């Protein structure tokens, strides 16, 4: 799954994060919030990027820290939002 297209697209975006001053190598489990990589502007940009790129709408109740803690959490959010409602 590391090489899934979603994953590649997400990592490509995350690598350009302005908050990543120290050039931290981002893995699937990197603490994006804990490590201060996602500041408020970066977060808003990430959400509009996800919504555009993956043609999703992020419902308000999903716009919570748990879904953005790590790249893995974001990928699972993308998967969940893409699946038909029958899943939930």
């Amino acid at each position, binding site marked *: 799954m590391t090489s899934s297209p979603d994953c590649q697209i997400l990592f490509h975006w995350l690598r350009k994060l*302005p908050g*990543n*001053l120290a*050039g931290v190598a981002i893995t699937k489990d990197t603490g994006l*919030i804990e490590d*201060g990589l*996602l*500041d*408020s*502007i970066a*977060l*808003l940009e990430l959400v509009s990027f996800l919504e555009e790129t993956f043609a999703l709408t992020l*419902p*308000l*109740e*999903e*716009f*919570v*820290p748990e879904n*953005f803690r790590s790249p893995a959490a974001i990928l699972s959010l993308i998967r969940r939002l893409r699946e038909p409602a029958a899943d939930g």
Partner: protein
Amino acid sequence: MTQPPEAPPLVRAVLETGPASKSIALQAGREEVSYGELRHAVTVFADLLRRAGVEPGARVALVLPKSIAAVELILAVLAVGAAYVPLNPRQPTSRLRATLDDLDPAIVIATPEIARALNAERPPERRFPTATLAAGGLEVSDAAAHQRVRPGCESLAGILYTSGSTGEPKGIMLSHGSIASFVDWAAAAFDISPGDRLASHAPFHFDLSIFDLFCGLARHATVHLLDEDAARFPGQVRAWIDAAAITVWYSVPTALAQLQQRRALHGVRSLRLVLFAGEVFPAPVLRRLMADLPQPEYVNLYGPTETNVCAYYRLPGPPASDTENLPIGRPCEHLTVSLRDARLGEVAPGEVGEICVEGPAVMSGYWRRPEMTRASRLPGRDRSYRTGDYGWQRGDGAIMFVGRRDHQVKVRGHRIELLALEAVLNAHPAVGEAAALALPGETGRRLAAFLVPRRETVPDADIRHFVAQRLPACYQPDRFSWLAELPRMANGKCDRAVLLSSCNSSAIG
């Protein structure tokens, strides 16, 4: 050494709780404390501080994330008669050290990580005396230096740092009297009562927090601390507002705009009052917000940290059009506001003048900057402040904001000196020339940097790193553009209008 004869006014309501001792004073996450528990914690912390050598008039720096313990410490510092100096725990260590060097604190209370980083590689004689707050307890590692209390600082309650015109830290001194006069005014003007539940949205190093903390506690209301990380997530904020049944919200417009963009406040039932300050609220966004959430009263507050709120405007309804300019309103009742010309005479009604403020809430001065303090006053008037903002007064008495006298702008609620940012950008070895601009955007202004390379361009991350080491995080540009040259006006100065219009074509905000 003089012991304050009685509890200072700012902590009196906490130390003398009366019938409120069972009601909830503070709430954060799953943690909450009653007024009785808060009084106990403040008393214990105050004793620890005294034993660590903190005396009345001393300065105590607090470099802590938002938490109930941090509030207890702020109150304990005040109970001792010392001054609290809240500093952003997320700023770079070099910047934090520069601020602490300027402050010369009796003691620095920090997280263990920050305390370690602060004193790493510092010669022993220059180490800051520290105490660390971890797992709810206060551990004093080095006793506080016995501090000379500077004359005039006996009544000092707090120092709030902003950045000066060249980006150096600048401490704004607030006395017990000045904070108390603001708190008395605001608590009465907005009728804060024990039944209120106030959102504490702003970080403690930001002046908006004075309202949340001190008005809330003075009136025995409940203050709900919103974690800075959680504040970025509209879904989380909404769930938090509903769970706490928040009645009073106070933040910068940017925070409300970001919530509105996700319609996160749509249909909130508990809010009765929404206060905002710190920058101009774009009318289109405010109209959408007030359509989503019509029932609260909305009030536009105006005032620099030096005066706290000095004018306010209660909105009679949503702005009539997207182009309507919101007034900053009438002078607060505890202050006098005048509009003055270059010779500091009052302008004729309807004319534009510099907004000048006088009264008990005005700062005592800039910490260790007597020259700057003098320059900020009306001649011969101690409790006065020239804001550097320009405005004019409408027929109905409401003041309209026009602009700044210098290159200072507000971005996301922070005061930004564009010249300071330009100076730092220019200092980067790869940059030949730089210009900084604040671009308008609906969810808040953005900072843009325009750079002309000396020889070759470098990655944006290089410049970001350079800026981060020298200026607070709010100075970080949101975008960088490398240009062959900067557009010029006839007099050779950079043509900011051309730069601004070059950005309008791309989607911003």
